[in-house]
């Protein structure tokens, strides 16, 4: 069966520091991978998605970037965090197709101080 791991679960970082959140999927190959940010009352905002190694699509221009160095690894990064980057970040995977569901990781609560 497929599993998705996301870490760390919580993170407190100072403004201006770098960020690296990692997500890995097991039990499947060539999944679509996603980073979402969840804000209270605003649902899930898609930040990045990837349909293959090295292929990244950015949905929202901002202080973050994503990379997919391996088939089942998806990394969310920032060179210098802003206060506004605080939030709950979710990684997800799914197969391509209009009738496929997404599977989510446990999420990372990022607080920038």
């Amino acid at each position: 069966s497929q599993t998705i791991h996301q870490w760390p679960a919580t993170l407190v970082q100072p403004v201006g520091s770098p960020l690296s959140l990692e997500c890995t999927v097991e039990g499947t190959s060539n999944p679509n991978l996603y980073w979402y940010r969840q804000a209270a009352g605003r649902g899930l905002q898609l930040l990045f998605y990837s349909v293959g190694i090295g292929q990244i699509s950015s949905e929202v221009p901002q202080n973050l970037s994503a990379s997919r160095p391996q088939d089942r690894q998806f990394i969310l990064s920032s060179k210098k965090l802003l206060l506004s980057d605080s939030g709950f970040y979710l990684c997800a995977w799914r197969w391509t197709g209009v009738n496929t569901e997404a599977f989510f990781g446990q999420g990372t609560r990022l607080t920038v101080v």
Partner: protein
Amino acid sequence: AQSVSQHNHHVILSEAASLELGCNYSYGGTVNLFWYVQYPGQHLQLLLKYFSGDPLVKGIKGFEAEFIKSKFSFNLRKPSVQWSDTAEYFCAAPRDNAGNMLTFGGGTRLMVKP
């Protein structure tokens, strides 16, 4: 591109009350729809999904949703809620026919009072 909206942001119910959470989608072609739930401290998980066929879809934990094409709606229902249904609920749909991503509604926070 498909968009999804949920008009109830916060709902408070007493146990045993009936639940209906609204979800509307924008694109009227072939539609695939999902409801997800996020219990406190847990990850998002699928409640139910609609692809085609019977417009009344049964999901886990006694939830169901009805696809009404004429109203562009896919409302989530449960006849009698329990305290353990306290959670945030999200409606979702593929953003386009390529199916590369899901777009989510703003979510509805449900609180069930014991």
